[in-house]
């Protein structure tokens, strides 16, 4: 594949004495779907949190699109082209689905408070265009008919999809999906896998955390495995599946468990 869109170089994240990520190095290449897996507590969501600036890393460097992300404000990281979904759904419940997407899309808006106050044409034009774009995104994700419903009243599966649509609203180059299939039944998972591929084909790069192995193995081009904050594997799905260290991390070792 092509050049890396993002590189994690020796990223370490310590919380006091707890080492959540220990010298983690991997890259995400343009237009690939990279699966990020590992047992509970391996540090997957921490990876998302350090990339998006929720935590400041205590060691190493994250380079996105050729520039370091250290010390960059969270909303600016989004503006540079990284947007995420949340493992526990965190939509803005009292806003409609469309507004949820539009709010994220405002990231790249030029008009602000003053032009909005006076209803300047530039603001009105942008508003109209963004509305159309938000509707297109909802349609793309397959929840277009729910555009005008409040997010909190949407069915669970639609909320999960809206999380993705909202993140895409911010026009990211890199989309971070945190367990997008959590709570889905097998049929829904198959549908979601198709959606994720469709998103990639539309030009996005995807970093995917997912517990469902069959889903990860099916959609990912490559898989990075974390265990206790360390990277233990980084290869294509079929190689990772047979890696003894990965099997050990997931299933444990029968003897010599020291």
């Amino acid at each position, binding site marked *: 594949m092509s050049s890396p869109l993002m590189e994690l170089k020796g990223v370490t994240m310590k919380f006091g004495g707890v080492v959540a990520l220990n010298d983690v190095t991997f890259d995400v290449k343009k237009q690939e779907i990279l699966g990020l897996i590992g047992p509970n507590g391996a540090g997957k969501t921490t990876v998302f949190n350090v990339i998006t600036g*929720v935590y400041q890393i205590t060691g190493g460097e994250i380079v996105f699109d050729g520039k370091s992300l250290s010390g960059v404000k969270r909303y600016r990281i989004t503006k540079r082209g990284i*947007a*995420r979904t949340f493992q526990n759904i965190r939509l803005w419940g009292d806003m409609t689905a469309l507004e949820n997407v539009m709010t994220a899309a405002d*990231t790249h808006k030029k008009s*602000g408070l003053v032009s909005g106050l006076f209803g300047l044409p530039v603001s009105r034009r942008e508003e109209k265009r963004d509305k159309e774009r938000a509707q297109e995104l909802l*349609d793309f994700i397959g929840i277009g008919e729910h555009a*005008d*419903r409040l997010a909190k009243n949407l069915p669970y599966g639609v909320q999960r999809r809206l999380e993705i649509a909202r993140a895409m609203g911010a026009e990211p180059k890199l989309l971070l999906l945190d367990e997008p299939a959590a709570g889905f039944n097998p049929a829904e998972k198959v549908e979601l896998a198709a959606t994720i591929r469709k998103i990639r084909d539309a030009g996005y790069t995807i970093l995917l955390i997912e517990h469902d192995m069959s889903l990860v193995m099916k959609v990912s081009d490559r898989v990075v495995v974390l265990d206790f904050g360390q990277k233990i594997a980084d290869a294509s799905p079929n190689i990772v599946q047979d890696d003894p260290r990965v099997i050990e991390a997931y299933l444990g070792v029968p003897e010599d468990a020291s």
Partner: protein
Amino acid sequence: MINIRDKGAEIWENQGRAGRVAIALGAIALVAALPFMGGTLLNTPIADYESVLVYPIAMFVLMAIGLNIVIGKSGLLDLGYVAFFAIGAYTMGLLGTKTGLNTWEILPIGIAMAMFSGIILGVPALKLRGDYLAIITLGFGEIVRIVALNLGALGRSEGIQGIPTPPGFLGIEYAFDSHRIYFWTLLILILLAIWMVRRLSVRRAGRAWESIRQDEDAAELLGVPTFRYKVWAFVLGASVGGAAGVIYASKTLFIAPDNFTLQISILILACVVFGGMGNIWGVILGAVILGYLPDRIRFLSEARLLVFGLVLVIMMNLRPDGLLPRKKREKAPNKKVNS
């Protein structure tokens, strides 16, 4: 219980542009005629009805609209809102007595001063959230009052006296007791504030505030410059409070630190919560009722505050989200088929 809010919104949405303009103008005319209804049921038997219309009612409405930007729209609990009111009033008092500037010239200066202090307070305070922010703002409200109490230039506990009334124009004279004129002046400011809030509620700023109120972390991680918008909310709220302060000083002609106690902040907050946080019509209704009620029941004398408190408690039990709560109406799911 019938849903007044939805009913109102329904009627509004079914009107064409002409219908809406007619409704709005009719409502404004009705409100503008309020000073002439002194002889009716609305009368406040003991207090001067027209004066009550100006203060507290119209003044509370204006301040409640301003505070609603901060609390209702962006979810920032500000317990020191009176500070901006005081800063507007003292700007008027000081410049009105020391310089030759008149009220209309001081009004923008007072607003600017309030906004500037909004930035001074907002930038450090808005790094905090929730209860911590509330405590800082509470402190700020008290600091402003105590500074006024101790600063010689501001007259200490004597305050400032002999503040000029606004100069008249077009044959309108602002005399000390021409309450109607002050009421209409405030009405214009209220309409301006409503226009500003409604304008800002629908576009980018409104969405940003809404997202901050509902989940600030998610907002920041999805590209909303949360800090900037929180400061903006603070500053815009302050501007409305400052405007109210200028008019207040120019009306009462005498201000002292005692006019700007914590109680005012709490009362305005009560107006917002009582009426319905986040819904501008609810907030206005709340301010009208809480401004009016104490004077309407003044004949109860000592029992007045007891009844006032009781009404608050009962209402908050019956309608915990306020009289006209913020409840967004959902349109039915789109029927159109999307390709």
